[in-house]
Every structure is written in structure tokens, then in C-alpha cells.
């Protein structure tokens, strides 16, 4: 960091530099900073903290989460599989006469279909969540940064990636300091 700032200011993704990490004093400060960051036009940035700060998604301009669609489609698939499956098993493939009841009835098939719909919806929601947030992920450049471990404890961080088109190490660092960062450091890959 003490190397001549003029030549290394402009860094690209291949420079071994992941980005800048800025520490904030608290949730209120980081929320205000997020609003400024959003307005400033950065794209590859994120806020890290021990709990979801209320209003942060709006401050960052995040779109409504699409994880609900995974759940809905999973539930619909589960329901259809159960209904069609029971119809096929008990009416088409091997009809079992039980007490003079119809071979297939949507009413007696409903409890199973209901349960299977919930099962598929829950699994699809969980799976969809993992897809959307990119987990499981074993390695992350931030895990190598010493203070980042405090993000799950009581500190709030903003990280701007060096791959962002507006990224400029010194200018971005100064910008982060003006929006209230207590401490700004470089994260290496």
C-alpha cells in the first residue's frame, strides 16, 4: 500500500487485488453509506454484517428476491407428481379394489399430494436460495482478511471489488472515508 500510488492506482481484476474493505462503526452508519454508494454508481459492492439491517435492501437498491418462484414451482411440481403418480399407481398400473372405493379419488389422494407439495416447495426454496446466493463456497478472498471474521460478530463492512469499472484504489478509498468508513484496507485475492 505504501508503493507509489500514482502507478498502482488503476488496478484490474488480474492484479491480485480483490478490492477495498471499509469498516463502519455501526448499522446506522453503514446504512447511510450504502445509500451514498448506490447513488455513486458502483456495481460490484456489498455490505457485510452480523444480521440483516432493516432497510438495507432498499438502500442498496436490491430487486425483490426471486426465491419465491423456486418454492412455487417446486410446490406445484410436487403436487402434480403426487396426484398423477397415485392415479397411475392405483388406477392404471395395478388397480386395487379397496372397500368398493373408486380406484382414484382426488380426495383420498389429497393428503399425500399436500405433503409432497410442501416437501418439494421447501427443498426447492432451499436449493433456490443456495443457487441465488452462490453457496456452498469454500474459498473466498475475504476469508483471508483478518478483520473480516468480525462481520459475523459485531462489525459492519462495505467491500468494493476491484473488478468494478469505477474502482480506483485511492479515489475509492477517499470516497469510502468521506461516507463514514472508520478504516479502509486492501483485500488481496
Amino acid at each position, binding site marked *: 500500500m505504501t508503493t507509489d500510488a500514482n502507478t498502482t492506482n488503476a488496478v484490474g481484476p488480474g492484479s491480485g487485488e480483490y478490492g477495498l474493505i471499509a469498516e463502519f*462503526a*455501526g*448499522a*446506522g*452508519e453503514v*446504512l447511510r453509506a*450504502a445509500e451514498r454508494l448506490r447513488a455513486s454508481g458502483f456495481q460490484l459492492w*456489498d*455490505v*457485510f*454484517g*452480523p*444480521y*440483516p439491517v*432493516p*432497510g*438495507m*435492501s*432498499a438502500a*442498496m437498491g*436490491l430487486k425483490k*428476491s426471486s*426465491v419465491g418462484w423456486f*418454492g412455487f414451482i417446486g410446490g406445484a411440481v410436487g403436487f402434480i407428481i*403426487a396426484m398423477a403418480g*397415485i392415479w397411475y*399407481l*392405483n388406477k392404471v*398400473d*395395478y388397480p*386395487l379394489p*379397496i372397500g368398493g*372405493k373408486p380406484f382414484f379419488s382426488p380426495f*383420498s389422494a389429497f*393428503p*399425500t399430494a*399436500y*405433503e*409432497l407439495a*410442501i*416437501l418439494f*416447495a*421447501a*427443498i426447492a*426454496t*432451499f436449493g433456490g436460495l*443456495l443457487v441465488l*446466493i452462490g*453457496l456452498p463456497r*469454500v*474459498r*473466498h478472498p*475475504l*476469508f483471508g482478511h483478518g478483520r473480516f*471474521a468480525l*462481520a*459475523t*460478530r*459485531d462489525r*459492519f463492512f462495505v467491500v468494493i471489488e476491484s473488478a468494478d469499472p469505477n474502482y480506483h484504489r485511492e479515489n475509492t478509498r477517499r470516497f469510502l472515508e468521506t461516507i463514514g468508513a472508520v478504516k479502509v484496507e486492501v483485500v488481496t485475492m
Partner: protein
Amino acid sequence: MSDSRQHVRPEKETSGELSPEFATAPMGLAREPLITGYRGLEWISDEATRFNEGGAPSWWRAGLLVALSLLVLGVVIVAYLVTTGVGVWGVSHPVMWGWATINFVWWIGIGHAGTLISAILFLLRQQWRTAVNRVAEAMTIFAVLCAALFPIIHVGRVWYIWWLLPIPTSNAVWPQFHSPLMWDVFAIGTYLTVSILFWYLGLMPDLALMRDRARRPVSRFFYGLLCLGWTGSQRQWHHYEKAYLIIAGLATALVVSVHSIVALDFAATQLPGWHSTIFPPYFVAGAMFSGFGMVLTLIIPIRSLCGLENLITKRHIDLICKVTLATGSIVAYAFVVEACHAWFGGKPYERFMIWNRVVGPYWWAFFVAVACNFLVPQAFWFRKVRLNLRAVWVLSILINVGMWMERFVIVVGSLHRDFVPSNWSYYRPTWVDVCTFAGSFGLFFTFFLLFLRYLPVVAVSELKSIASACVWGCSSTSDGPDTRR
């Protein structure tokens, strides 16, 4: 600061200004805090994980030893049962459903309170749930495991249990889905899976906390693996909160459906005492009641043994007692309605069944069930009782006993006097029944004690969320936000 804490999370808090709730609430009506002695976010982590990080105390080792011994007993007994046949139990005509069925219904009912606390109270935005939901969810999963054990072993030929699943087989006969017993397979399977998913989803951020606090590389490695690489990024939280809400909604649908389907195992038969439309809601209420009894039985020792008094306060116990009272009242109401059905229904068999319950050979079981489920919870009307933890603990155990007896009354009380008097008999369990039940406790407490030791016992990130929502609301004073050092 804690005196003025209201625990109402402001909808959108962007500054240190007082939210409307804080500004207008008269101070005289201030509620007791949900967290006592609050000293910042990191303090919550310290309090919550203290039991995981120190050395294992002797009570834990002794408890695990007892639980493991019971588990070994259970394994041996089940091996004896499977190799010999279900005749080693006391079941015989006409009482073909004995302790195995009672234990199944009892354990699965206990699970329901965990889901109610974690899912329904979450949807209702009851913030007090956050301190107890992790324990309650763990209780749910282990109770459902214990419950699932009994139907599996009571089929006798355990090696054919896979016939319950629609797997293409060489004999080409499919399960028939008109039967509530088949519905049960799917209900319990779904319940177990969704409970585990929901629990794990809640655990992910806290496992990341454990990873970041871990001192030994091996713990860091395993917690890091378990949390799937959670970073606490807002883009993760954004989707996470939505997914959590959706799975909470799905689990809510399970709270009302699982025990309803268990109830249909009974209600779909034509036996007086079982053949009743009130059974599904009655069972659901009974499940919640017994589950809350078990939550109290577990929470009260845990909060002092694991040093969680600041996070699980007397107010939590007070609130759980109130829910127990409410659900217990529904159960009592169902007792009365059942008798009224028999009385006004005009069916002689039904009437005989009720009379036989009260004054027949199993009058003692009925008496215990009524005393424990109807009279005992009435004590919770009194605040003095609700805040006396020893008293609450004893009462909660009586509730557990009462709800087990209630299932005994339903199962055995309805079966033992058949339509034909020459069939009548008096059912007695054998020592194998007792040991199997004891073995299920071994299974439950082995898992539970391991959970207490190796996983975060309270939902730390959620607690931080509610704690800071409130501190923010009150932080315009010089105290400042808690996160500042």
C-alpha cells in the same frame, strides 16, 4: 437502556430518531426486556456460545452417559423385538395398538410446539421466539425421529418397511393411497425433512459465527464446512430472509396437517372413541399443548445450566406458560365436546365408550389425564406460578405425563372393550414395552445433549437483530450505538 426497550422492530429505521412506537408508548406500560444486562452485539455472541466454547461440564458428561446407556438399552431391546416378534410387547387382541402407538403419537405431538414456535410465531412477528426457537426446533427434529421409530418397529417384519414407499418392485403391487397410514408415511417424512431444512437454514449464519470464533483449526474447518461458506453479505441476507419466511410459511402448513393426518389414522376407523370428526383439530391442539410442556421441561434447566439467563429470561418462560394455558384450554374443551358428542349422538356404543372411560377398568388413566391436562394448567393463570421456575418445571412434567395418559386413554381405552363382550380384555404392557420407551428417551437426549454442546443453542443473528433494532430506536442519547467501541 434496557428499561425502555420495547422490542418492536421499527419498519424502516434509517437514523437514530425515535420510531413512532417508541415515541408514543407510555413509559408506565414498558414491557420487561427480552434480553437482560445487554452489553452490545458481541456480548450476545459470548453469552450464546459460552456453553459451546468452554470445557464440557460434568453434568453434561453425566447426562450424556445416562442418555447413551438408555440408547444402548433401546438398541438391544429393538434387536430383541425384531428377532423375536411383536408378541414380546403386551399387545394382543383386541388391544393391537399399545404403547408403540401411544409413544408414536406422544413424540410426534411434542415436535409440534417446536414448529409452532419457530414458524407460526415467526409469521406473527413474536420476537420472544428468537431466544427459544433453536432449542424448540432441535426438540422437534429429535422428537420426530423418536416418533418415526415406533411405526417402523411395530410392523413386526422391519425388513419389509420399504413396502410403504412407492418403489417399483418385482412383485409390482403398489401401496394403496386410500389409507391414512400411507398418508402418515408422507406426512412424517415431509415433517422431518422440512424441520431439518428450516433448522439448518436458521443455523447457517450462526455456524458462520462459530467458524469465526473457533480457536482450533479443526473446529474452524467443520463449522466452515457446515455453514457452506456464509459471509453475512447483504445480498445473501436479502434472499435468505425471503427464503426463511417462505419455509416458515410451509412449516406452518405442516403444524396443522401432520397431526391431523395422525388423527385420521384413528378417525378413519369405525371404532367408537376414534371415529370422530373432532379428532384432527383435537390432536393438533393436544400436540401443541404437550409440545409446550416439553419445551418448558427442557428450557428451564437449560437456561441455568448453559448460562443463558440473560437471553432466555423469566419473561420467556412466562409467555410459554401462557401459550400452554391457551392450548391446554382447547384440549380441555375437546374433552368436553367428545363427551357431548357421545351424549347427544344417541349411539349406544359411543355412550358406553365414554362411560367405560370414566368408570371402566382404566378409570385411573382417565383421571390422571383430566387432572394433568385440565387442572394442572389452570395454575398458569397466576403470575406468581408462572414466574416460579421450579413450580413451572414440575407442572410441565405433569403435563407431559398427562398428555401421554391422554393418548393411552384414546388408544387403549377405546380398544380394550370390543363390540363383543367375549373379546374384552385388560391390556398390560410388558417390560419390553417399558424398555423400548426408555430407549426412545435415550435417543432423544443423546441427540439433544450433543446439540447443546456443538451447535449454537440460541439464534444469535436473530437476537442481534432484535437487540439492535431496539437499541437503535433508543440510541439518540449519549449511550450511542452498541457496535461502537
